């Protein structure tokens, strides 16, 4: 297993955000985490990325216990989060946003990898010297993914990447996630667009109020009538 999370528990003051969640992602797999707003999905990803410290539980990456390691060590190990709402650096240029993604690297191939990202996203290449704040929402999401790619991740975690994007852009984004996965990148995807997520993922987990309530293959979760009513149907109306 590439990522093994065991009994992860996280509290913010009086809020019990994540309650003993265990999940794993195999090398080359796309795994999705579903659940309503406030189910603890983002908190779970932040804890795996090292942005917040869990109260209990262990996180193993590539067989090594990284629970006590900082965010920088996890990025170096190959774990990268694309945070919710893009969170690009608005006062940096497009190119500088990519460069900061490779901040933990010390090899000489960063410039080449920046060009590779620009080849993948011609829209970004056309605006490489412009401030990232002038990009559209879809371009910002591509930049956030490109920035994460610069760290040479083995597992990319995406937190609600389709949020606020038009249906055409959502299709493009999921096409991109599929491409990256076929090129060997493992993906842990938090999405509220449940149908798209279950279409692309091999397996999924469902969180409710911080606790794991279901897990299984994408097909099993898609066919589960309880889930369809509680979560999956709800996003149908929203979409």
């Amino acid at each position, binding site marked *: 297993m590439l990522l093994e999370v065991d009994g992860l528990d996280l509290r913010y003051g009086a809020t019990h955000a994540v309650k003993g969640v265990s999940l794993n992602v195999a090398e080359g797999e796309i795994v999705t985490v579903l659940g309503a707003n406030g189910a603890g999905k983002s908190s779970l990803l932040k804890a795996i990325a090292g942005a917040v410290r869990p109260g209990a539980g262990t996180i193993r990456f590539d067989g090594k216990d990284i629970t006590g390691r900082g*965010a920088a060590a996890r990025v170096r190990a190959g774990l*990268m989060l694309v945070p919710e709402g893009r*969170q690009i*650096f608005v*006062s*940096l240029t497009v190119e500088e946003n990519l460069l*900061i*993604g490779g901040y*933990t690297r010390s090899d000489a191939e960063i410039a080449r990898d920046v060009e590779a990202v620009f080849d993948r996203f011609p829209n970004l290449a056309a605006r490489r010297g412009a401030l990232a704040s002038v990009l559209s929402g879809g371009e910002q999401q591509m930049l956030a993914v490109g920035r994460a790619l610069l*760290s040479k991740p083995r597992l990319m975690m995406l937190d609600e990447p389709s949020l606020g994007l038009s249906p055409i852009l959502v299709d493009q984004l999921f096409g991109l996630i599929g491409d990256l996965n076929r090129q060997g990148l493992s993906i842990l995807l938090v999405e509220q667009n449940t149908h798209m997520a279950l279409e692309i993922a091999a397996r999924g987990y469902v969180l409710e109020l911080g606790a794991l309530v279901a897990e299984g293959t994408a097909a099993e979760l898609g066919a589960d009538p309880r889930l369809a009513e509680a979560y999956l149907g709800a996003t149908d109306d929203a979409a």
Partner: protein
Amino acid sequence: MSGYMAGVLAILGINVIFAYGIYLTAAAGQLNLGGAGFQAIGAYAAAILSVELGFGIVSTIVLATLAGALIGFLIAFPILRTRGVYMVLATFAFAEVVVGIILNSDTLGGAMGMIMFDYIETPAVLWTAAGVVAFVFYLMSTPIGLAMRAVHDDEPVADLMGVNNRAIQVAAFASGGALAGLSGALYAFYFGFVEVQYFNAFLSIFVLLYVLIGGTQTAWGPLIGAAFFTLIPEALRIGEDWRFLIFGVLIVLMMIVRPEGIVTRDAIDRIVARLMPGDRRA
């Protein structure tokens, strides 16, 4: 060069270096309203090293710069525990403590100040300022400069990218303290004396204004801001009574018209696009 011009240019050089000291912390997202304290440390370190201990001019300036860096490094840890307006107050309090210590110290001359034996001339100040400008432009083009700006933009996300926010912020305080200390040492050698009254709250406020009004987005900001604040008051000397009023009105207008500072990255993009129409910048 007339004596008056030489004097104005030397003050400009000292102010530019001082402004870059404050800029380095501001570029990493922290407001330092204790500039006068750091400059006083550099000036008094220079006075002690040169007058009391007999060090040469160059080694005195180097050591005074290091003294500023050391104090900046040490003070960073308690100050970085505070946020926003409390950090501004903490840095302000730091400067007041420095001045208070000097004022009550007989060794440091108290309110009488200290007289320097060695002098430097305007060209030495200007060359040093040119070196500092080149150094800061270089620093801001390195991954460390990039990380400073990322921390300024969004600390949690910079952390996700693997940037050690705390290390960057401490380094910014230490290198900012070094430059402020350097400006103080040059001040001491140029004017030939140090008196604690000069390092007052207004000085801290003014140097922070140089930086904020010049703009913190690029390394051009402090240069333009310090030049604006040093030269405009000189140019406005004609109507002595109205000078500060006109200056104050200019500052308020500036904040209304260009809240991000005189020099912004957008402005530089536009200038580059105009000079080089074929450039790929948008």
